[in-house]
């Protein structure tokens, strides 16, 4: 490097001198583009960068933290490349000043003349006003870090080894990636975010909430609407942070990722116009024709992007201009696409995501419980923007429709669900070849096809040849899919998706057949006979539920196969206390029951007494050891509010009191609840009965709901108003309430027999189809009606109130405390 410095000083300057300030992603791309199209050699190029490293792929820093890359592996070009391309590099040097009048840039120890100057100084982390964030000298205090450079990464990793708890301030793209990186290092991570939802710059509140669930599932604890006021701790040690609401969170490492600020001080001090960034026109030129700006530091048409895609498009246009390849080249602005790079969370955000006028079409699909949220904004029959969470392949598909601004097919739903119409036909066409798959490197489908035809057989080889997948890596799945397609190898499918439980390699029908054939009556017998003796904890509760429904009284109950809720018949809470919900048939309660509940609440100092959404009374915060006594004092049966079973039947008052009532909804509700109490089902089953179509009990959004009409009762199935809202389908209209009970029995039996474990009725009804259910259960087309009813009567007659176990525990320590335990004596 010394030599190069010397060279740059002694070489006579014949060619015009091009100086690039900032050796980051935009700078490197500019040089690559100038070289690739020819014309770099026209210039005498000097690259000056403050960081010691050769330009590297900054967006892979999170991968360094997540341990999968070494710093050397993320260089954009090998060091030789710059030498071979005739680029002189001054690394580890900061440009202090620009002298526009003389045409010089000054570093601390050099002054270099330029004919063209390119500002590619990037941006730096924004530091919010937090007290004790910085030392008196102005640097970050020990234990507090930012996340921008490879140096930052090294410091974080050095520190992370000795830390256990981390806090990340900022819930944007960067903060999330940093948080995940720390998690991968084994730290427990709390993420503190000022706004009301995550990634509020890119996402709407709903998407933010779905993302939050996904992130929390990974183990990151998220605190929204939390403003950090101060860093706590003495001297060299960080002990935590204090929030505005007074809460403190403890941590020994804090990362600030609260946004970025373009590096504009150089431009500002030499009198160039600066808004948020260095202002440039469509030629990426400042008003001084000798000075251009690209990348994070530039502001174009009021946009400061802070993303690599726009930086690369700017680099391309500027390269065209500087090399004279296309003197008419103009940069029109970028369409923005962002992807979150956290393993297992697919999130793509494109363009605009809120409608602006009535003509804008919004297409929405969401399944929050499964981490899926898709939102598409269509304008003039083209993709104007989208949020695609939880579906990597759709994200990639829409990205290319967005990027190419392809006119859309009329069936909008297909854009979000299922395969795109005509995507098969598209494959051979030239248009398909234009589809960009790797957006970091702008690799088109055509290039991949050519590489495969040229002999590439592996993803790795493809990356080496085309650079596809070597950027942020988020296109890996779609590129891998295309590779398989082109190679003609059958795409592998994960067979586990079809198993009833992950630990026993059989789909439900085969599993049931084997269990029956071999007479397997316990969970451990199933593992022994059908899984090679290998137990799987996650499969136990599902198997237990299946076996119980198959064998009824002959089922050999093994307690360890149950979730703790089902061992102690109460619902575990976040603080390891339990909640107790006594059965209140149809929501109709007596004064003496209320009095007993009140007495219990006082006697056991129950921290919260709550009326539930299902018309029940919930006593929350009860210790496991107190359960038997609480049950005894209540003297009411178990309400099954903790398990996969029939839960509650809500009712309205109906003909008994209501002046609109058409049917006796309370009596029917109580009857349904008495019939089905304790019935275990593949997933929870909620019911309701309304006395007229005003439907005060909300029966149309229950798994099973009855509504009185003039001529009798309507029975609805498959409704839901939880994470998903679905109106139930009308299964039958009957004249006699007995019929409601009968058809309900058949439905529940058929559901128990055919649903997957944890499959709610709203999925089940959709999967089977209401017509089929009607013919089977109401019209009795296959003559199975009575058999189904019999199955239910058997199951019902096996019912015992599980709270009786309070008096007669079935195993040692069943109701042992887990919270305030006595200390063990007996030290040897």
């Amino acid at each position, binding site marked *: 490097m010394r030599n190069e410095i010397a060279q740059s000083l002694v070489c006579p300057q014949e060619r015009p001198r091009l100086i690039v300030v900032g050796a980051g992603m935009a700078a490197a791309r500019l040089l690559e583009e100038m070289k690739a199209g020819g014309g770099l050699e026209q210039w005498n190029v000097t690259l000056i960068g403050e960081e010691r490293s050769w330009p590297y792929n900054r967006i892979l820093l999170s991968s360094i933290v997540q341990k999968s890359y070494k710093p050397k592996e993320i260089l954009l070009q090998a060091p030789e490349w710059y030498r071979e391309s005739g680029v002189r590099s001054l690394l580890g040097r900061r440009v202090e000043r620009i002298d526009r009048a003389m045409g010089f840039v000054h570093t601390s120890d050099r002054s270099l003349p330029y004919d063209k100057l390119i500002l590619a100084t990037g941006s730096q982390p924004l530091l919010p006003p937090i007290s004790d964030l910085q030392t008196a000298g102005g640097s970050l205090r020990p234990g507090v870090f930012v996340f921008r450079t490879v140096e930052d990464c090294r410091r974080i990793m050095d520190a992370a080894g000795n830390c256990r708890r981390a806090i990340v301030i900022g819930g944007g793209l960067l903060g999330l990636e940093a948080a995940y990186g720390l998690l991968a290092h084994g730290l427990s991570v709390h993420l503190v975010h000022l706004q009301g939802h995550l990634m509020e710059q890119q996402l709407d509140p709903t998407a933010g909430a779905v993302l939050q669930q996904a992130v929390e599932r990974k*183990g990151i604890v998220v605190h929204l609407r939390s403003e950090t006021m101060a860093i706590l701790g003495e001297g060299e040690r960080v002990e935590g942070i204090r929030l505005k609401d007074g809460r403190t969170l403890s941590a020994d490492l804090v990362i600030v990722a609260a946004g970025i600020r373009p590096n504009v001080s150089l431009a500002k001090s030499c009198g160039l116009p600066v808004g948020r960034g260095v202002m440039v026109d469509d030629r990426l030129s400042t008003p001084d024709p000798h000075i251009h700006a690209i990348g994070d530091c530039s502001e174009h048409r009021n946009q400061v992007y802070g993303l690599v895609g726009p930086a690369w498009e700017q680099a391309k246009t500027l390269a065209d201009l500087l090399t004279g390849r296309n003197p008419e080249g103009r940069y029109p602005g970028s369409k923005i696409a962002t992807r979150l790079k956290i393993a297992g969370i697919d999130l793509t955000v494109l363009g605009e995501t809120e409608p602006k006028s009535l003509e804008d079409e919004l297409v929405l699909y969401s399944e929050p419980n499964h981490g899926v949220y898709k939102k598409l904004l269509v304008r003039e029959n083209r993709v104007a923007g989208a949020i695609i969470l939880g579906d990597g392949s759709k994200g990639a598909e829409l990205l290319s429709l967005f990027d190419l601004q392809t006119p859309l097919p009329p069936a909008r739903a297909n854009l979000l669900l299922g395969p795109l119409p005509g995507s098969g036909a598209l494959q051979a066409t030239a248009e398909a070849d234009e589809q960009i798959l790797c957006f970091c490197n702008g690799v088109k489908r055509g290039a991949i096809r050519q590489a495969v035809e040229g002999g590439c057989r592996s993803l790795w080889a493809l990356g080496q040849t085309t650079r596809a997948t070597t950027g942020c890596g988020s296109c890996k799945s779609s590129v891998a899919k295309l590779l398989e397609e082109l190679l003609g190898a059958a795409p592998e499918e994960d067979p586990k998706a079809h198993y009833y439980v992950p630990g026993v390699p059989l789909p439900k029908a085969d599993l049931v057949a084997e269990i029956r054939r071999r007479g397997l009556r316990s969970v451990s017998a199933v593992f022994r006979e059908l899984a090679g003796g*290998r137990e799987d904890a996650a499969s136990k509760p599902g198997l237990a539920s299946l076996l119980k429904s198959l064998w009824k009284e002959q089922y050999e109950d093994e307690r*360890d196969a149950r979730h*703790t809720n089902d061992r102690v018949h109460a619902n575990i809470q976040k603080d*390891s206390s339990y909640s107790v919900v006594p059965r209140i048939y149809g929501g109709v309660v007596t004064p003496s029951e209320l009095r007993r509940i009140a007495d219990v609440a006082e006697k056991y100092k129950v*921290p919260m007494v709550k009326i539930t959404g299902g018309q029940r009374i919930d006593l929350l915060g009860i210790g496991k050891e107190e359960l038997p006594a609480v049950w005894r004092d209540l003297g009411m049966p178990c309400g099954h509010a903790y398990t996969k079973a029939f839960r509650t039947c809500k009712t309205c008052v109906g003909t008994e009191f209501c002046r609109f009532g058409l049917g006796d909804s309370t009596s029917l509700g109580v009857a349904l609840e008495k019939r089905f109490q304790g019935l275990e089902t593949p997933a929870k089953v909620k019911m309701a009965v309304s006395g007229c179509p005003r439907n005060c009990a909300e029966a149309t959004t229950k798994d099973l709901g009855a509504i009185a009409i003039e001529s009798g009762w309507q029975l609805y199935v498959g409704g839901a108003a939880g994470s998903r809202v679905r109106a139930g389908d009308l299964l039958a209209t009957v004249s006699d309430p007995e019929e409601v009970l009968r058809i309900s029995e058949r439905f529940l039996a058929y559901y128990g027999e055919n649903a997957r474990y944890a499959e709610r009725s709203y999925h089940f009804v959709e999967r089977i189809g209401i017509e089929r259910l009607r013919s089977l259960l109401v019209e009795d087309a296959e003559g199975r009606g009575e058999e189904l009813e019999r199955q239910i009567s058997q199951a019902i007659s096996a019912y015992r109130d599980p709270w009786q176990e309070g008096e007669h525990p079935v195993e040692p320590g069943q109701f042992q405390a887990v919270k305030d335990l006595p200390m063990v004596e007996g030290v040897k």
Partner: protein
Amino acid sequence: MTRSIPPGRDAWVDLGLIGAIPPGQGRCFRVAHSMIAVFHPRSGTLRALDAVCPHQAGRLCEGVLDQEKVLCPLHGFAFLLQTGEGSGHAHSVRSYEIRITSGRILVRIPVSPLEEGSLAAEKGEQHIQSLPATRKGPRRKWQPAARGKKR
């Protein structure tokens, strides 16, 4: 009531009869400042881990287990019974040596880590403190902002 553990050497702590832990389940014991979960897999040896899940303080002794791992009852994170390492996530818990002598469970508490452990337990409590609604403790509730006041 409790005898203190002599410093400078490991201690084997008697946790009682093995019959107290039904096969396939776990039970929780408090030893000095630590909560220790002892697991009795249906096949294989007994195992002991720290009982408190580092995720959000779920009690691992309440989890469903198999020969290799236990699933936390709160959010289902898996921990290997032998080492306490997390499986599929980055958290982990400490594991303890365990042996059976005449039907009694003995767990070895390494003394210096025990001292550390007591520190860790204190830290752990701090951590739990930041979680809302611990039973019967003061519950921190959201309160609507006072109206008419400037923010």
